[in-house]
């Protein structure tokens, strides 16, 4: 079983569209949406939820006003600016360290478990999909990402499937790190813009830091041919494989509006390129055994 994650650094370069295409093209696979902040893959995979699990993670301080004598120790020790002037707690700023609760001489502060999100195991027309919804303004998305990946891996092992295909999140921080550690390949989707390349270089730094093998897709490459050439050169110089270049096509937006993957929606240059890209990726990873 091989795990592939699709990342980009910069948002909106086409991670979910490409993950959806791989879902339609790969055989024997489980999909995992690890963009738990803003999970979108389910919108084109139309899942039927089989199981859902409440995700509890971390704690938040709760002040019992009737016990508080206003000594202010909590406010002094808190480094996250989460104790208000009236000694109530701002739950959004609270990082759940518990310092105030341990330090309070009146034992007036409880630490309460957070319901941080929900995890779904589902079936789709392309196979199982594991995804999650982080609660509104909740934290610990890294832990939820790890849980989504663990469930997806269990299903793949159980069914003896070949692939786990992971839709990652933008950025280089905690959820991205949780989604790439230990995968067989990270596919970085780059758009031909200065910011696209700048952000891809940073996320490449993260994959190198965690020793994850990388391959590249340039998406919407015809929006700036000069930039595309620059990106190609930059990655070729570093011996990083470019799997292919996908043209900009409004059909992609239309496929999302229809709730379909681009592979189902049309048969054009975009789908042809994506088929070749998937075949190439499959060969490369199967050969890597």
């Amino acid at each position, binding site marked *: 079983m091989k795990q592939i994650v699709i990342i980009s*650094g*910069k*948002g*909106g370069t086409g991670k979910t569209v490409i993950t959806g295409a791989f879902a339609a093209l790969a055989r024997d696979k489980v999909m995992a949406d690890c963009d738990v*902040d*803003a999970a*979108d893959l389910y*919108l*084109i995979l139309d899942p039927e939820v089989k199981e859902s699990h409440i995700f509890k993670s971390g*704690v938040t301080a709760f002040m019992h006003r009737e016990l508080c004598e206003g000594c202010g120790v909590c406010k002094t*020790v808190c*480094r*996250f600016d989460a104790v208000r002037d009236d000694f109530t707690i701002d739950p*959004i*700023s609270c*990082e*759940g*360290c*518990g*310092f105030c609760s*341990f330090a309070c001489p009146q034992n007036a502060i409880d*630490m309460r478990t957070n319901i941080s999100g929900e995890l779904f195991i589902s079936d789709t027309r392309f196979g199982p999909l594991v995804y999650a919804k*982080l609660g*509104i*303004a*909740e*934290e610990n*998305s*890294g832990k939820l990402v790890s849980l989504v990946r663990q469930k997806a891996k269990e299903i793949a092992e159980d069914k003896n499937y070949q692939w786990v295909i992971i839709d990652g*999140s*933008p*950025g*280089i*921080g*905690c*959820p*991205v*790190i949780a989604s790439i550690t230990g995968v067989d390949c990270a596919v970085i989707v780059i*758009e*031909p*813009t*200065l*910011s696209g390349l*700048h*952000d891809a270089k*940073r*996320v490449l*730094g*993260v994959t190198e*830091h*965690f020793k994850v093998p990388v391959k590249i897709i340039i998406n919407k490459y015809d*929006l*700036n041919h*000069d*930039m595309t050439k620059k990106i190609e050169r930059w990655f070729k110089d570093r011996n990083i494989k470019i799997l292919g270049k996908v043209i900009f096509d*409004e059909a992609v*937006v239309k496929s*999302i*509006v229809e*709730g379909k993957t681009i592979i189902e929606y049309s048969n054009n240059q975009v789908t042809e390129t994506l088929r070749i890209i998937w075949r190439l990726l499959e060969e490369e990873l199967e050969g890597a055994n």
Partner: protein
Amino acid sequence: MEKSRKLIISVASGKGGTGKTTIAVNLALSLSNVQLIDCDVEEPDCHIFIKPVIESRHTIFIPVPVVNQNKCDGCGRCQEVCLYNAIAVVNKEVIIFPELCHGCGSCTYFCPHKAIEEEKKEIGIVEIGKSGETQFVHGKLNVGMMMSPPVIRAVKKHINKKKTAIIDAPPGTSCPVITAIKDTDFVILVTEPTPFGLNDLILAAEVVRKMRLPFGVIINRSDLGNKKTDEYCARENIPVLMRIPFSKKIAEIYSRGDLIIKVLPEYNKEFQELYKKIEQVKVNPT
């Protein structure tokens, strides 16, 4: 209503790549007496567009505990008070996992033998500079580091209350965004009218509502998609502040790191209008 206080406006979105940076840089540079603050410290891009001259740099550290083995008797109090499981005491020996530490300081405070001290661990930098008359601040999280909020907080310390501040926030709906938009006067949520854009707009709007911040929406690439985003905003009474139709010209201007207001000066007025609308919405919230 005090007139002198300047607004702090944050530009956010649930979905990435909807045009936050485009809005933030063009809005900032269409105004005078303004500061542009890039809080997307994982992937800061504003500097690409405004090409600032950097005048000072500060390294950002978080405190991480270090145990003085001579003073430690292995009592385990530090492990008890660390709710992040960043400290384990095995056979009276303290093991610290710095990547799990949030730097709360609890272990140092409660150690009965004063055996724990804090060491500074570098997690990023803040750079301050100028582009023409526009003041510029951004932060960069070091590659391989997990936690961006401390860097975002460090960036926000440089907000100058005498100037209008435009904050470019990171995408998503969790801690980094919350840290970036906290204590701002108004949030612009940038979206695109696709099912992905709408799904993530709804999540972002819920976050902003939970934080009780006034907000409005900008619909970018407004002709690529469907009408559902407009319907949602109308139903929820969310003001649509601006619509930018898709244009290959704008995409190309963006791709080479240029400003829309420089290449297409007619947009200057549009962004100034945007600012006026925000002032109005802020004064007369729906």
